[in-house]
């Protein structure tokens, strides 16, 4: 008692609560019977209320103390009913009873019902005087938490007082008093967060802030009232006729169905409701009751609903009822329906939902598998739209049926948002009756999600992927997803999630690995994101590099192109040079031909010299003839002695012959002059050839500047020049031969001169003619020497040309090397390009091959065999048809 008082004083005391109740409910005046003297410490407050205190106890020791304080007392044994009432009347001795207090008395009584019944009888006789009791609450959280840890600590005083014979929780207190004929008029329980049982302090279940404590307290607070009530302090009035006793824990429904189906409707869409009820009538498992909750339904609509219910098959009519629910939000009819339900499980359908015929059957299977868990089945959905029918507003399915909801329940996914239409779960009714759960009427939407999470966290979920229901979405008209704006859904989602986040929750087995995986995934994601970032950066770099390489490649390609162009130009130039060389060759040939012509001319000159020689010989012969004639003349002179006239005539004839010889010598001289002219002409031709060679040289030089191949052509030109030189040499030899011939001719001429001298001696005229011939020959000789000098000069020029050609060849060689290097670089660039193309082609081929392999490995039989079969079938059909 003392300990209780100490605790009570922390948060208001029992006495204060009792005084408060007495001030409200005690009769205006009379005696306060304080049974067990629990109120004695506050007896002073009786006087303030105008009441006369009388302490009553069966223990004399209790009373002695009070008597010493000057309080009125009476010794009455409190165990027996009939004598107790009588004795209390005796003690009152005709005085009016104003109220009865029984503080901490019922716990110390073995049979409180009897005591309470006797008190009710007395109170009824005294104008219905009230009873105020205080009783220790053994269902206080501290006691419950300690029991979890296996502790039951009896103490001298307090909640588990050692002399307590009866233990009370809220339900028993209500039952005992009600059965004894008392009606509660006011409860003013003493709430004590830390009761006298709050020890040891370090017990985890008692320590505020530990998950175990907070979770247990959460469950305890929701399950039944009085989690933190230390003392029930309540005022009662006697009732005229007490109700018969019944066991508080007896089941209300002995034949409770498996499933209570709560159908929520507003009575506006009778067609969907009728379909809904038809789908319930078609259930394979009929262990159900149907409660149609008509929410804010107009009278005529409600009448239509009840009329429709009457058309159902009889078995279902017997198990169905309609109730009207007015006011509140979407949660109200569900909550009211649950209150009406009697099934072991409760399931919910909106009037536009449809059940497949094994909806109940699958729930029953799941519950058999896992009793007490939330049962969840697969759910499909499709869209519907309003449509005008003959009978009024109808509806029509307007889209295909899909299954967007996960087929298995996942708690974590459901914390994110609702993934379970309300029609696809069945919830144990015990959640509502024993765990204090309810649909939150404050929520505008998502009340089903809130409920599902509450139930799932405590009961767990057993699910099947079997699709057993259809959730339908309206395209237009009234529907929660149309009526409420998106912000409402978002806000409600956040608020529900925040509510769950604020308290400790139980997670199902497997959650540790799930959470671990999530954390690891989060880490991996972070890592991957950072990798991704790095890769993006390197990609950017690589992209830049690639761009640079592309530029470089472009440049290289341009250079290759330019080199190719240069090559083409060089080739063109080479071909030009070739053509020029050909021209030069042709010119050399011409030169050769001209040299040959010169030779021929020399030969002709020789022949002319020979002719001149022969003429000289003829002249000699003529001289000889002249000598003979001279002899003849001598003979004639001799004869002239014989006949001077004849001799003179004959001398005239000789003179005439000498004139003829002279004329012949002139002719020979003219022939030599002609030969000389021919040699001059040959010299001119050689000079022309020289000029042509110079020209060729210039051409070769031009070819050298442009082309690589010019070397070859230069070589060819060189050879040609050499050939020309040889020809020139040959021509020189020929000229030399001609010179020798000329020398011989000179000797011949000299001989002829001797003959002429001899003839001179013989004939002066013939001698003079021969001398003239000799002079002409000398002139021819001089001309030949001049030609020789000219040939030598041509030879020197040819040597110079040769040297120049070799220099040009070296230069052309250098150019050719450069050109070849450029060509090599171009070839390397082209090879690189080809290699890159080859790699690309190889990669493409490999990918293609892989795809083909995969295709071959998986599809080939499917493709080839059915194709043949298909063709065969079609062919057969065509043949038959034709």
């Amino acid at each position, binding site marked *: 008692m003392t300990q209780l008082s100490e605790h009570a004083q922390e948060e208001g005391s029992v006495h204060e609560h009792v005084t408060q109740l007495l001030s409200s409910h005690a009769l205006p005046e009379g005696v306060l019977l304080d049974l067990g003297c629990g109120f004695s410490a506050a007896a002073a407050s009786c006087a303030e209320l105008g009441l006369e205190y009388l302490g009553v106890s069966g223990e004399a020791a209790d009373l002695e103390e009070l008597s010493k304080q000057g309080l009125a007392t009476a010794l009455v044994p409190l165990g027996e009913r009939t004598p107790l009432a009588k004795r209390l009347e005796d003690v009152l001795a005709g005085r009016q009873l104003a109220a009865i207090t029984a503080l901490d008395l019922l716990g110390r009584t073995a049979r409180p019902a009897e005591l309470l019944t006797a008190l009710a009888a007395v109170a009824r006789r005294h104008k219905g005087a009230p009873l105020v009791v205080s009783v220790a609450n053994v269902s206080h959280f501290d006691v419950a938490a300690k029991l979890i840890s296996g502790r039951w600590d009896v103490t001298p005083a307090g909640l588990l007082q050692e002399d307590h014979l009866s233990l009370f929780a809220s339900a028993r207190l209500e039952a005992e008093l009600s059965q004894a004929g008392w009606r509660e008029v006011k409860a003013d329980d003493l709430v004590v967060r830390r009761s006298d049982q709050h020890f040891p302090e370090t017990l985890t279940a008692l320590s505020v802030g530990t998950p175990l404590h907070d979770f247990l307290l959460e469950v305890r607070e929701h399950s039944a009232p009085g989690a933190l009530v230390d003392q029930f302090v309540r005022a009662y009035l006697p009732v005229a006729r007490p109700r018969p006793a019944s066991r508080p824990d007896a089941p209300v429904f002995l034949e409770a169905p498996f499933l209570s189906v709560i159908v929520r409707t507003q009575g506006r869409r009778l067609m969907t409701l009728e379909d809904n009820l038809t789908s319930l009538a078609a259930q394979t498992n009929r262990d159900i009751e149907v409660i149609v909750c008509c929410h804010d339904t107009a009278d005529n609509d409600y009448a239509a609903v009840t009329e429709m219910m009457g058309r159902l098959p009889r078995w279902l009519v017997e198990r169905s009822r309609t109730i009207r629910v007015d006011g509140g939000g979407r949660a109200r009819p569900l909550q009211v329906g649950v209150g009406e339900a009697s099934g072991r499980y409760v399931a919910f359908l909106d009037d536009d939902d449809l059940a497949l015929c094994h909806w109940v059957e699958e729930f029953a299977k799941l519950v058999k598998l896992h009793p007490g868990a939330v049962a969840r089945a697969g759910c499909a959905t499709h869209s519907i739209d309003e449509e005008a029918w003959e009978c009024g507003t109808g509806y029509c399915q307007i889209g295909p049926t899909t299954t967007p909801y996960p087929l298995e329940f996942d708690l974590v996914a459901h914390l994110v948002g609702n993934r379970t239409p309300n029609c696809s779960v069945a919830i144990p009714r015990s959640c509502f009756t024993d765990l204090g759960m309810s649909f939150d009427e404050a929520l505008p939407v998502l009340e089903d999600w809130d409920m599902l999470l509450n139930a799932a966290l405590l009961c767990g979920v057993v699910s099947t992927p079997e*699709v057993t229901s259809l959730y339908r979405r309206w395209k237009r008209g009234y529907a929660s997803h149309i009526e409420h704006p998106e912000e409402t859904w978002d806000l409600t989602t956040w608020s529900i999630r925040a509510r769950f986040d604020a308290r400790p929750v139980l997670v199902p087995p497997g959650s540790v690995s799930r959470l671990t995986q999530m954390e690891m995934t989060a880490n991996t994601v972070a890592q991957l994101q950072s990798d991704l970032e790095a890769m993006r950066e390197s990609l950017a770099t690589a992209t830049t590099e690639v761009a640079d390489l592309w530029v470089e490649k472009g440049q290289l390609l341009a250079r290759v192109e330019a080199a190719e162009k240069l090559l083409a130009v060089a080739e063109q130039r080479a071909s030009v040079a070739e053509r020029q060389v050909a021209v030069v060759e042709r010119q050399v040939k011409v030169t050769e031909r001209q040299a040959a012509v010169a030779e021929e001319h020399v030969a002709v000159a020789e022949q002319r010299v020979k002719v001149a020689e022969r003429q000289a010989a003829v002249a000699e012969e003529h001289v000889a003839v002249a000598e003979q004639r001279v002899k003849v003349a001598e003979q004639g002179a001799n004869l002239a002695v014989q006949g001077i006239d004849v001799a003179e005539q004959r001398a005239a004839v000789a003179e005439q012959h000498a004139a003829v010889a002279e004329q012949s010598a002139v002719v020979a001289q003219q022939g030599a002059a002609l030969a000389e002219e021919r040699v001059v002409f040959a010299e001119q031709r050689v000079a022309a050839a020289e000029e042509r060679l110079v020209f060729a040289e210039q051409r070769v030089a031009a070819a050298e500047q442009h082309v690589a191949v010019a070397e070859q052509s230069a070589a060819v030109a060189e050879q040609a020049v050499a050939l020309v030189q040889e020809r020139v040499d040959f021509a020189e030899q020929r000229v030399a031969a001609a010179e020798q011939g000329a020398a011989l001719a000179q000797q011949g001429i000299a001989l002829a001169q001797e003959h002429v001298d001899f003839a001179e001696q013989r004939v002066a005229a013939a001698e003079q003619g021969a001398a003239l011939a000799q002079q002409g020959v000398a002139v021819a000789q001089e001309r030949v020497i001049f030609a020789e000098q000219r040939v030598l000069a041509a030879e020197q020029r040819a040597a110079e040309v040769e040297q120049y050609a070799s220099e040009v060849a070296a230069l052309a060689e250098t150019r050719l090397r450069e050109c070849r290097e450029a060509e090599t670089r171009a070839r390397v660039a082209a090879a690189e390009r080809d290699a890159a193309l080859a790699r690309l082609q190889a990669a493409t081929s490999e990918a293609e091959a892989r795809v083909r392999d995969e295709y071959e490995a998986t599809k080939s039989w499917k493709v080839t065999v059915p194709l043949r079969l298909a063709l065969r079938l079609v062919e057969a059909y065509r043949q038959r048809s034709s």
Partner: protein
Amino acid sequence: MATALRVQTVRYGGDDRRLLRMLRSVTAAARQFGDGAAGSALTVAIGDCGGPEGPGAVLGGAALTEAREILTRAGILLDYVAFGRNLGHGAAQNVLAERAAGSPDPGADCDVLVLANPDTYLSPNCLAKLVRVLDDDSVGIAEARQIPLEHPRTFDLATGDTPWASGCLMAIQAAVFEARGGFEPAFFLYGDDVDLSWRVRLAGLRVVHVPEAAVFHDKELMVTGFPAPSLEEEYQTVLARLLLGHRAERPDFVEQWLGWAGLQGSELHRRAAGEFVRRQAEGVLPATYREALGLSKDAVASVTFFHEGEYAEHRF
């Protein structure tokens, strides 16, 4: 107007509880039907294609007794026929209809035939709504709206006119059924409803979708949300497509599906294609609409429709 109604269903194995459930729904729907037209009479005919044993066995004694009890309690006559073998859906329905027409029993005569699958569950209003639509003589067939999955076939929002009616649950004037010669037995399981609908329309009558008459068609959905097809459905659907293409003289459609079956189809699809080719070779294919009904090609083309394996425009 008093209407005599005959609900006909053909069973072959399957879950007997479904059939009993269907019969219960008929009793509930009959109450509305009876309320709507005083003096209306109702008979339920069950054609049993089950053999003596095996998966397609004949309706068990206990189930048959229960069926009889369910109907008797509601004052409905039962006409149960065991064929002893699987005739196929259309042929079995024909036999059931002929029994009504040819019976000397005046009570067996009927005005309207309601052809229902055994895996359906009729909504309470279903029969009354269908029969009322058939009061209009221009309507040959009235079709119910299926739930939970509506048939996607298009229909006229104002008149309900639709290209063909599903055999899941249709009501047809008995006289029309008889005049059209009932179902074409060449269709064993699927496509017979399309064929019958087209022939009714080719005869100048309307086929009407009645959305107010809901019927729950017990489909199991795969996890994808699509109904799970049975093996028999796989085979019969392809065969039905080929037969419809043949009757409407659409060789392009036939070739398309022969090719499809050969290329992409399953073993069953290919077998169905082979069966069609075999029938054609043996000359046992049903007559074309032109031959059978003496109509022009244009007349046939105005009613028949082929597109991507469907026989009507679809809403979704």
